[in-house]
């Protein structure tokens, strides 16, 4: 290929000649006037380029045609430039490419400009929607009922669903609203297209459009057409979405719709250990995430009576589990995932904490497992008092996993007094190791056994114990050898529950209440529809009927209201949202109990005694009479569900909905998501709107934002109150996140996936932070997020050149230059040098580097 040398100064700003009108965009095509400075001029030179059509014939690339196709999708997007997308697309093309490659390239090209102008996310989404539509129609599928019929013929869709759709075809076909495609951002639609739409088993073409997909899920979860349409309306407006397993599997031949499974520890026998591998594999296969306790398995050095040998402890078993988890691939949709829970009195706890290290013996490393500590209060008190901590072999002290609160403490102290400890350590040494594991791997989550049990609706009777949480630390349910806890999840998108009153954005409480009611009914429905891969899961779910209704887009709500994440109003609003969700969720569950009966174990719950979640926190809700009335109805009617609220991390469904994850602050105003479908740039579109309003959104600003790793704190032009609103998770005090979580916790009968963020953690900081989380009564915490010590060099912006005038830091240490050396230090340079020297001697305490 002939490479033309591009003149270095031939750039004039001739870009953007798409008339930015709101309802139609008419690109004016003037080939003599290239629209986007120099890079595009090359594209016009290569008019000889040809594309191969689906028929196999070739034709010259027609810029005009591409511009028109892009322009059609750009209606209403004032700030996108169709010409620019078209010319850039052609520039990346090779001679003989197919038209379908051209279509895909134009989508990717549009998506690549998202950082510059967030409206390109909408444009890319619309181009993709058109592409999907073509793909589906190309298979003679024109309507929803035809799509279901195709799925039925191909053996993908459940009989029950196809009959329901066939019987109501006209009404359901009419319910589809293609305009709802416009709700998507690119990343969301792309995720749906790549992984959620049903695919033809051989051709791998999708056989449904995104709207047909939403309606399919809605129908699968409904008994009547009106219920289905009501649900479809929530899904397609992205106001509420069920969890990924439900979206993956509803209406198919394998309706495994639950997200989470909690498996009790295997007993200390070879058979049950291997049975658990099989359980984990079966549950993983259909998209479940697994929590597995290991408290009961004997520790290293324990005597094995039958062979008179000594045990190697839990690590070899977990190594096998690691391999098993990696082998299960959830239908190519995502990988299996499992979290192992261990109580810190287990004698293998120290080896357990090293399982994720990236150095050391590979035979003792499990790179695919997640790890969590299941921590009794007694341990935290020993840390507080700087006391000793005893480690036990569960073979010798088997009773501890099934006890909590005072009974646990009595048994633990008794075992210590009887000299049964395998080893004693300083509580703080072990705590420091936990903190180090968190800092170095993000794993080893801190979850608190006693609060989790004392504030659980299912533990009213003795012997009922929560032994662990799940893969994402938001589910807390009792387990036993015969009961595997299950949970079905769904999350409300708060970003879509905002109304504007006199120019001020505020939460739409009525809409929130309505959404909660529809969502709880849907989640309850899942329990009866669900396919259970193992019998102990069915046994548990039918008795307790737990569901987990969560939230996402809290950060979007705050952005829309311009509230800093840690403002007192934000904290109060967040508390009230959780109170409202809990209230309406309980109310709906009472109504369901009246219609269909309470869950079979209701009489054994705390709710049957009139105790609700906030009672366990010592919190009195704002509107007490309303709650007292509800409490009476709960006792009279019972509840359909023993547990109702859980805040899941919503990683994937928040992407689909185009909102920030669950109750989390944004990590950056500019970041990429790494997913199985590829990497996607995300820019904070609320911030961009503010900057545009101030006339500040330009190339220079984008470069500064990138260099600042997506932080706006150095942007002096942005008013201070807005800088406070647009802080990132790294810039918000973690104390405020914990306080907010604790306030909310009084209305969450399960728990919340609470990530904590410290850019450059040290043990002192971490140990204080987790101690505070425990003190505030949190049941669980999730990942510790930190950041790499060095970064990749920026490729698209220039880093400032290193300053050549730094003084010689040796001067600070009394060093005198040898004769002839040119070492002169300016006063400021000496000061900087002192700071450097200080940080080298005393890196943890130097204020200059914090």
């Amino acid at each position, binding site marked *: 290929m002939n490479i033309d040398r591009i003149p270095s100064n031939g750039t004039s700003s001739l870009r953007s000649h798409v008339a930015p009108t709101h309802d139609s965009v008419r690109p004016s095509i003037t080939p003599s006037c290239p629209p986007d400075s120099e890079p595009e001029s090359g594209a016009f030179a290569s008019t000889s380029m040809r594309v191969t059509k689906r028929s196999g014939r070739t034709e010259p690339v027609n810029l005009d045609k591409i511009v028109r196709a892009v322009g059609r999708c750009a209606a209403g997007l004032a700030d996108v430039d169709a010409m620019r997308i078209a010319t850039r697309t052609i520039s990346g093309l090779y001679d003989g490419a197919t038209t379908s490659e051209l279509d895909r390239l134009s989508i990717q090209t549009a998506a690549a400009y998202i950082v510059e102008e967030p409206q390109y996310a909408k444009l890319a989404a619309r181009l993709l929607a058109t592409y999907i539509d073509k793909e589906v129609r190309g298979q003679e599928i024109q309507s929803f009922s035809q799509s279901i019929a195709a799925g039925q013929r191909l053996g993908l869709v459940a009989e029950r669903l196809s009959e329901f759709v066939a019987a109501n075809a006209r009404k359901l076909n009419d319910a589809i609203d293609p305009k709802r495609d416009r709700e998507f951002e690119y990343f969301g639609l792309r995720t749906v297209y790549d992984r959620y739409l049903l695919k033809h088993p051989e051709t791998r073409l999708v056989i449904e459009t995104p709207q047909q997909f939403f309606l399919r899920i809605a129908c699968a979860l409904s008994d009547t057409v009106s219920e289905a349409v009501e649900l479809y309306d929530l899904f397609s407006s992205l106001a509420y979405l069920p969890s990924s397993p439900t979206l993956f599997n509803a209406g198919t031949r394998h309706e495994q719709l639950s997200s989470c499974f909690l498996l009790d520890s295997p007993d200390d026998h070879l058979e049950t250990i291997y049975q658990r591998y099989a359980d984990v594999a079966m549950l993983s296969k259909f998209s479940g995430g697994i929590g597995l306790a290991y408290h009961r398995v004997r520790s290293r050095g324990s005597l094995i009576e039958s062979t008179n040998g000594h045990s190697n402890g839990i690590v070899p078993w977990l190594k096998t589990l690691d391999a098993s988890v990696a082998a299960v691939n959830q239908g190519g949709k995502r990988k299996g995932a499992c979290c192992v829970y261990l109580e810190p009195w287990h004698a293998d706890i120290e080896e357990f904490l090293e399982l994720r290290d990236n150095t050391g013996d590979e035979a003792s490393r499990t790179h695919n497992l997640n790890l969590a500590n299941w921590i009794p209060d007694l341990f935290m008190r020993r840390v507080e008092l700087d006391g000793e901590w005893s480690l036990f072999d569960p073979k010798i002290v088997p009773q501890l996993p099934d006890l909590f609160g005072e009974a646990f403490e009595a048994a633990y102290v008794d075992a210590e007094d009887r000299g049964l400890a395998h080893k004693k350590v300083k509580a703080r040494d072990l705590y420091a190791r936990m903190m180090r594991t968190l800092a170095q791997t993000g794993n080893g989550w801190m979850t608190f056994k006693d609060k989790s049990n004392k504030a659980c609706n299912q533990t009213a009777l003795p012997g009922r114990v929560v032994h662990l949480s799940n893969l994402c630390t938001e589910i807390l349910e009792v387990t036993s050898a015969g009961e595997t806890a299950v949970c079905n999840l769904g999350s409300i998108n708060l970003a879509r529950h905002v109304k504007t009153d006199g120019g001020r954005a505020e939460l739409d409480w009525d809409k929130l209440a309505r959404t909660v009611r529809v969502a709880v009914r849907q989640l309850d429905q899942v329990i009866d529809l669900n396919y259970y891969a193992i019998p102990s899961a069915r046994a548990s779910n039918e008795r307790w009927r737990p569901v987990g209704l969560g939230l996402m887009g809290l950060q979007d709500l705050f952005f829309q209201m311009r509230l800093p994440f840690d403002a007192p109003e934000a904290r109060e609003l967040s508390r009230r949202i959780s109170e409202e969700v809990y209230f309406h969720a309980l109310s709906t569950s009472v109504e369901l109990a009246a219609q269909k009966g309470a869950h079979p174990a209701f009489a054994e719950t705390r709710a049957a005694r009139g105790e609700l979640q906030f009672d366990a926190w010592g919190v009195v809700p704002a509107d007490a009479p309303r709650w007292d009335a509800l409490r009476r109805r709960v006792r009279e009617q019972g509840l359909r569900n023993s547990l109702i609220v859980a805040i899941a991390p919503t990683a994937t469904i928040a992407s689909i909905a185009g909102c920030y994850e669950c109750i989390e602050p944004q990590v950056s105003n500019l*970041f990429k998501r790494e997913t199985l479908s*590829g990497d996607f*740039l995300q820019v904070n579109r609320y911030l961009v709107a503010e900057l545009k309003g101030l006339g500040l959104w330009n190339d220079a600003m984008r470069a500064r934002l990138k260099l600042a*790793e997506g932080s706006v704190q150095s942007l002096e032009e942005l008013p201070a109150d807005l800088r406070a609103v647009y802080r990132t998770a790294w810039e918000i005090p973690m104390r405020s996140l914990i306080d907010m979580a604790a306030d909310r916790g009084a209305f969450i009968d399960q728990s919340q996936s609470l990530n904590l963020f410290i850019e450059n953690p040290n043990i002192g900081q971490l140990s204080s932070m987790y101690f505070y989380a425990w003190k505030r009564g949190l049941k669980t915490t999730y990942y510790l997020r930190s950041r*790499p010590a060095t970064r990749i060099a920026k*490729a*698209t912006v220039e880093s400032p050149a290193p300053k050549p005038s730094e003084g010689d830091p040796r001067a600070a*240490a009394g060093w005198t230059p040898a004769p002839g050396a040119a070492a002169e230090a300016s006063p400021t340079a000496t000061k900087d040098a002192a700071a450097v020297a200080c940080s080298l001697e005393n890196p943890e305490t130097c204020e200059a580097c914090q």
Partner: protein
Amino acid sequence: MSAVTRPSRLLDPGMCLTLRPMAYPKFFEMYRAGIKNTWTVEEIDFSTDLGDLRNKMTAAERHLVQRLVAFFATGDSIVANNLVLNLYKHVNAPEARMYLSRQLYEEALHVQFYLTLLDTYVPDPEERFRAFAAVENIPSIKKKAEFCFRWIDAIGELDALDSCAKRRQFLLNLVCFAACIEGLFFFAAFAYVYFLRSRGLLHGLAGGTNWVFRDESAHMAFAFEVVATVRREEPDLFDASFEEDVARMMAEAIDCETAFAEDLLAGGIAGLSVRDVRRYLEVVADQRLATLGLAKRYGSKNPFPFMDLQDVQELANFFERRVSAYQVGVTGEVALDASF
């Protein structure tokens, strides 16, 4: 007596061993930061790569990948050789040599990574041998290797940097490896990987390369810090002829890499044209020149918006990707009342 006599300048010949007081704490900090970013090949998950190669990629894309990996497998070895034979010898400060030792380990790690990758990607032993012999039998890679060897050999005979001419020669070698080989050849290779990554292909390659990229960025930063230090200590070395030499070297590197692109992209890949690759190289070259304090020469605009992806924070969903943003070597004591 508390004052220690150290060589007054970084490139003064000798084998300085004095770490206190420290002349160049920045190098020491770089060394420590490098250690915090330790990763291992075992952490990388190749499980979906083979499926992608077999089922999701065109013959043209497979060709691109195999050539790329072949280049990487030898490229890091070349860098390691130059480090031992030339840089370690002449950069005369123990803290800088600590950094170079760390870098040497990282180069070995990279070689191990690409070795594992080639073994995984190229199951046929004969084909594998050919891939490892890339420097000899693949002309486009051979050309790049020859460029590197020429600059290694150029100062192979230098025993001590005892004249301005020799110091300049050394600097050219350093600049060549930092700005042209790690800074341009590798950055081009990363662009191809990012292109694939932006389309969700080859997570093992992308994940490992991301870490390699992070390391290489640190290597470059170190080399440029050496250049900046020398410039501060001996500004006279940076005269017009030096600038001209660097520019010529850079132009030649761009030509080598463009020829490589023609080979890589011979099968036609939508979204990657040779013309765009060349523009991208020019953008990168300008950045290197600017970092060296020299005038830019090309004035091109970045044609690859997907490179934006590597400039921003990552947020991985652990269901889908292994999270890579952690540090090792975290220290401190338990405290219950520290601020957080």
